């Protein structure tokens, strides 16, 4: 299987190189057959990589530990769904997943435009196959998942317990899906620039891929945030960690492109912006992939050892992509990318989109500077680092501007508007925003955080604009068709998915930012040490540590982990609100020389938080149990098992271990141990997740093909084929 896998990688490399060359050669007139050959190479690449990935998954699912990648991430007791996901928990597997998604997305894209843009498509195909060749080469020469050993271990190390969460299982698929799908508009932009194509057909042809990329990447980022909040023991969802930022950078620039592209489609403007934005998005996607496996930045996510050779390969690719992109934009700026029209007025939709671009690029610049600051300052002589407060200070004002623009942009007129016309369009949502600004301090503590109050007001304004447009569209359709409001709304949304999907996204994003502002500025937090019976007051709630809890979890007949925690009663004004059960799960380390009992406490530990989510506030608690009283028992148990090592069969050892651990957890329950608790009462956190769902729903709606679009594509394909046949005749 290993040999077959290696053969697949080599074939993938060969197909990519051949296909890229054939496509480039076929770009000249009269060489259509080479273009077709290049296209078929792409399809074949996808098939071969899919086979390679299948082989890898078979190795994981069947626990073939002669593959070190399998032994390092999986084990006999790992559930089947974690075994499947463990394939992309490794450097090698994640690169193979990247190549699989890239070849799949590229095949779909090139298939969807076959017969169209005959001048652009060969170059786009060549770029996509060039990227494929890069990843295939890295896999084959330096990071093959199909290396084997002669004799594998009896059991593997298992998946890191921190990764055993549904969000993080699928988080890489969404991230890489976003990165690879953004390669499609990137490649077509390169092709359009090379052939000096002035129109926006390449934007229209790749819009589905751009939107889907944006959706997938955004979902991947949010899954990471959710995992951080619900699984890790610090209570936050975003830490401005370098690798978090690396996935945010292409999303920011990609969002700017999605908006700005509309201006080029409608009025032939902002061409330099659009080309620059999508080329930057493509480069930043590769940069994001690179950062997580480079080790060049200190990060919680920096998964790499020193002397990693693929860092040099990625650096070279990024340099080539950046240089090529800059060259194309600069040399085409004065002709191909010349705007067809000018901005007529500062009060116009075109101006708002330009301001939108500037704001997104500014945020991107700040995030980029903050992320790479240690590298930049290290090169200048003294390495320095920036913390989360710096990012918050510089980014929040820009985000406020973005939310304001998201409220104005959809309603302001094209070409030219006037203050009175604008006020007429926006007065209801504007008044709602002003009401929040005035009433907020009177009804809440919002005045304690002026920036948060501004976000509440602007968010209300933007949500109001979105709802107003939905209402206006519904009323207009009702006037024409006489339908009931729900049917009219469904009808108008169905016929204008892109527009109404966009409104839903704007509403969702504003809801998210309101949640972020409230949960950041008005969170109550307390770190406290409690013994059973003691209470702590946090944010108007009383948290009482009632008693310790302890249990042993088994899987497939094996002892998987020990969980020690507490039962915590939460009350407000004397009434029971909920009971929370924070725990700490201790997973054993696979080290035969370590003590039989202590290996459970020397391995990995994860916080299982207690969470009561609500629309108005979340109650969140994590515990670090004090196991000091257990240490003498653990040491004594280790000695007993060490002394009896040769006298017990494996079965007896397992049985006695179960009894010993059972006794240990009983001791924990009865010894009234103290616990170190982190307690958070966070207002409106649920708005973040709800807003995310609205945004994703809106994105899905906008990306969904319009009715008749598929028929139109098929007709266009047939028309192109007919034209081809007629030319031959």
């Amino acid at each position, binding site marked *: 299987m290993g040999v077959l896998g290696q053969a697949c990688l080599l074939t993938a490399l060969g197909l990519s190189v051949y296909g890229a060359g054939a496509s480039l050669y076929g770009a000249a007139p009269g060489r259509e057959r080479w273009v077709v050959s290049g296209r078929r190479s792409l399809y074949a690449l996808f098939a071969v990589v899919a086979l390679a990935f299948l082989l890898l998954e078979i190795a994981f699912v069947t626990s073939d530990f002669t593959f070190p990648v399998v032994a*390092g991430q999986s084990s006999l007791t790992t559930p089947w769904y974690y075994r499947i996901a463990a394939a992309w*928990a490794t450097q090698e597997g994640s690169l193979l997943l990247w190549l699989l998604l890239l070849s799949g997305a590229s095949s779909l894209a090139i298939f969807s435009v076959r017969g169209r843009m005959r001048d652009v498509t060969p170059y786009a195909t060549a770029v996509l196959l060039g990227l494929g060749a890069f990843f295939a080469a890295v896999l084959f020469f330096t990071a093959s998942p199909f290396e084997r050993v002669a004799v594998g271990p009896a059991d593997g190390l298992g998946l890191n317990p921190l990764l055993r969460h549904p969000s993080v299982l699928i988080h890489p698929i969404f991230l890489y899906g976003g990165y690879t799908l953004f390669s499609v508009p990137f490649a077509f932009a390169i092709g359009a620039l090379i052939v000096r194509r002035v129109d926006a057909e390449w934007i229209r042809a790749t819009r589905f891929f751009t939107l889907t990329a944006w959706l997938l990447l955004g979902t991947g980022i949010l899954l990471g945030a959710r995992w951080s909040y619900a699984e890790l023991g610090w209570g936050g969802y975003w830490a401005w960690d370098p690798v978090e930022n690396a996935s945010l950078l292409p999303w920011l620039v990609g969002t700017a492109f999605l908006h700005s592209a509309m201006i080029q489609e409608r009025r032939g403007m902002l061409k330099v912006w659009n080309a620059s934005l999508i080329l930057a998005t493509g480069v930043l996607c590769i940069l994001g992939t690179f950062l997580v*496996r480079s080790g060049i930045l*200190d990060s919680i996510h920096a998964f790499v050892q020193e002397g990693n050779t693929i860092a040099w390969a990625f650096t070279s690719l990024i340099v080539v992509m950046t240089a090529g992109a800059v060259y194309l934009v600069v040399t085409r700026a004065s002709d191909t990318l010349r705007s067809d029209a000018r901005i007529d007025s500062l009060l116009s939709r075109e101006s708002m989109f330009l301001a939108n671009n500037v704001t997104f690029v500014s945020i991107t*610049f700040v995030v980029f500077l903050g992320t790479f600051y240690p590298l930049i300052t290290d090169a200048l002589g003294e390495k320095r680092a920036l913390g989360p407060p*710096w990012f918050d200070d510089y980014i929040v004002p820009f985000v406020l501007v973005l939310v304001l623009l998201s409220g104005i942009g959809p309603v302001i007129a094209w070409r030219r508007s006037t203050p009175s016309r604008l006020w007429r369009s926006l007065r209801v949502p504007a008044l709602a925003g002003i009401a929040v600004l005035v009433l907020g301090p009177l009804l809440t503590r919002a005045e304690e955080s002026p920036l948060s109050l501004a976000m509440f007001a602007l968010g209300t304004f933007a949500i109001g604009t979105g709802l107003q447009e939905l209402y206006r569209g519904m009323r207009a359709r009702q006037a024409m068709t006489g339908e009931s409001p729900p049917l009219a709304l469904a009808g108008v949304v169905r016929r204008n998915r892109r527009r109404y999907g966009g409104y839903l996204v704007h509403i969702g994003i504003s809801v998210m930012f309101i949640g972020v502002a409230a949960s950041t500025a008005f969170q109550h937090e307390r770190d406290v040490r409690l013994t059973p019976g003691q209470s702590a007051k946090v944010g108007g709630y009383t948290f009482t540590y009632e008693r310790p809890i302890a249990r042993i979890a088994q899987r497939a007949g094996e002892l998987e982990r020990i969980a020690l925690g507490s039962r915590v009663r939460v009350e407000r004004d004397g009434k029971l609100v909920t009971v929370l059960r924070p725990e700490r799960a201790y997973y054993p380390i696979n080290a035969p020389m370590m003590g039989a009992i202590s290996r459970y406490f020397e391995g990995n530990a994860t916080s299982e938080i207690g969470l009561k989510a609500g629309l108005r506030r979340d109650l969140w608690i994590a515990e670090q149990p004090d196991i000091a009283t257990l240490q003498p028992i653990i040491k004594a148990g280790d000695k007993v098992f060490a002394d009896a090592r040769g006298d017990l069969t494996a079965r007896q050892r397992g049985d006695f271990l179960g009894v010993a651990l059972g006794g240990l957890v009983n001791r924990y329950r009865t010894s009234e141990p103290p616990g170190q608790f982190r307690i958070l009462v966070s207002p409106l956190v649920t708005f973040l997740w709800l807003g995310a769902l609205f945004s994703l729903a809106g994105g899905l709606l906008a990306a969904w093909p319009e009715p008749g679009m598929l028929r139109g594509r098929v007709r266009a394909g047939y028309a192109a084929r007919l034209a081809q046949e007629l030319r031959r005749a």
Partner: protein
Amino acid sequence: MDPARKRRIRLVVALSAALLLSGALAYTTFNSSSSAVTPSGLLASASAAKSYQLTGKVVAGSIERKGAGMDFRVRDRDGTASVPVSYTGTVPDPFKEGREIIITVRKQGATYVGEKDTLTTKCPSKFTDQRQAGGAAVS
């Protein structure tokens, strides 16, 4: 004025403003940042007036939990020079001996006090040489 000339002037003004703002950002950022150092760097020249972002590995056997806080030692990634750290705040789940951490500290006497909630532990390396997982290599 010729519209083309007007546009050129606007572009120059906008680019100059962007350049100035970027420069101002870079300059003010320096004052908000902390020196990123290793334990040997701290030992060589740490000042009580400044905060430092310390990166290193937790020394085996050095962790002592004391109530709400804990003391431990941090050593150079590839060396033995180490410094004592005292910390109170969120302890990340992966934190343990031998793991690489990042923490913001200030010098207080002979020890370094970690700022609350600045302790980050790097996830154990996923992208290691997988042959470490066991077994003999195929020749």
